[in-house]
């Protein structure tokens, strides 16, 4: 195995031995007894513009009907020139992107180069295809490398699409409406940022699974501008009650002290060899 290639994913990684059993059990009990994984029910979008790529995402993570995280980070770092938005099962997108990022760091250190976007895409595709859709990760990869500005999407079954603009997640239809209407080739930076912001906003407004704030990540040859949050939710709650309690708020009713009886059984002194 050549040094410059990426480490093989260890065999002890994801273990799907119970997947068939769970599927069978779900059928037997017939109705939501198995614990539901934390889904990011999301809106993510990406646009290729004149000087690079703009990625955008909302910040809501849901666990069924409850908002589990109001400021979840869905734009993940892959390498200095590549970022990835993830929709689907939160744990899967998090771990998959982490794994990819580690592997690409090793490649960078071995070869002294920034990885190419197509390399990240191929590694992801290999991995997701191998797991046949069991890893619920819908990813948008965007980055700038020596060959240009690229935007790809990788689905959970391992299919890739290379397009100039994209939206994924449960709010993708709303976001795509804005993108289809406003996208042009070779947009300027501010136009591209505004387009992505508007599309994520549409997703937030029209989809229950998306909400709260909007994050934007601009990747160009000069560097990365990760603006978090780019736009804050209009519906931020202002808490009037303070949740910090002074020491002494809870009264002490009784106090009981029990001394532990300890005796020295054995004492051993080991000198450290500092020669």
């Amino acid at each position: 195995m050549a040094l410059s290639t990426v480490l093989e994913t260890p065999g002890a990684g994801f273990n799907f031995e119970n997947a068939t059993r769970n599927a069978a059990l779900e059928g037997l009990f017939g109705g939501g007894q198995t614990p539901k994984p934390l889904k990011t029910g999301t809106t993510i979008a990406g646009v290729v513009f004149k000087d690079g790529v703009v990625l955008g995402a909302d910040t809501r993570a849901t666990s069924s009907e409850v908002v589990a995280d109001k400021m979840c980070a869905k734009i993940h770092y892959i390498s200095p020139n590549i970022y990835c938005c993830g929709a689907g099962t939160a744990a899967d997108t998090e771990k998959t992107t982490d794994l990819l990022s580690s592997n690409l760091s090793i490649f960078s250190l071995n070869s002294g180069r920034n990885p190419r976007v197509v390399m990240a895409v191929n590694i992801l595709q290999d991995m997701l295809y191998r797991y046949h859709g069991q890893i619920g990760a819908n990813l948008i990869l965007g980055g700038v490398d020596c060959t240009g500005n690229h935007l790809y999407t990788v689905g959970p079954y391992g299919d890739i699409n290379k397009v100039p603009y994209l939206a994924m997640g449960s709010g993708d239809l709303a976001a795509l409406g804005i993108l289809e209407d406003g996208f042009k080739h070779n947009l300027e930076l501010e136009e591209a940022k505004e387009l992505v912001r508007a599309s994520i906003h549409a997703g937030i407004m029209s989809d229950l699974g998306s909400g709260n704030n909007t994050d934007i990540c601009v990747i160009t040859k000069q560097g990365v501008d990760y603006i978090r949050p780019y736009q804050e939710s209009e519906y931020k709650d202002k808490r009037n009650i303070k949740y910090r309690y002074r020491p002494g708020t809870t009264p002490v009713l009784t106090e009981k002290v029990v001394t532990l009886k300890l005796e020295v059984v054995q004492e051993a002194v080991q000198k450290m060899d500092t020669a």
Partner: protein
Amino acid sequence: MAAAASMMPIFGHQISSKNDLVPDWNREEVSTGTTIMAVEYDGGVVIGADSRTTTGAYIANRVTDKLTRIHDRIYCCRSGSAADTQAIAEVVSYQLGFHSVELDEPPLVETAANLFRASCYRYREELMAGILVAGWDRRKGGQVYCVPIGGMLVRQPVAVGGSGSTYVYGFMDSNYKPGLNKDQCLELTASALSLAMERDGSSGGVIRLASISEDGVERRVILGDQLPRFSTH
């Protein structure tokens, strides 16, 4: 585990929970529900495909390129599961490239077709892939091989595939004649694809065409508003 083994879920259905917040199209597998076509002529082949990739009822990509390069003069048209066909095409590309370097000469189309067939037949239970392999080589000129779902291999002068193909068998049978030249083949392919795209919900977008001959590969796109029109109602 005997009970669980007999209730083995089929790959490609239902990722996990039935969460209402995740709509249908996020849970279905991405299919290229397609129309693809390949025609031989004296001196090369013409291949064509539509450009629609669907996830259930949602069009995931409306500008897909289903004509995938396997080697300099060998292309394949993909239909079926997007992930499966992309994976197979990459594997075969690699195998054929390696084989070609070993031989130190351009590979034969028949070899490429056999490599596809080997993968599609061996993993026929797990895969859903219908592929047309077409290209030009020095030994037999332009050739079209059909590798449908299940892993059969047969050479045909003209072949169609994908969900939209059923609508154009009649058109193909009545309009194809041996001895057509390249332009006639291009016209035939464009017409057939246009008719299929008109009737099949899973096919649409633009028509991508390519002609492969000894001189190389010429690609072109027919945009939605320039499609050949047939219906008057």
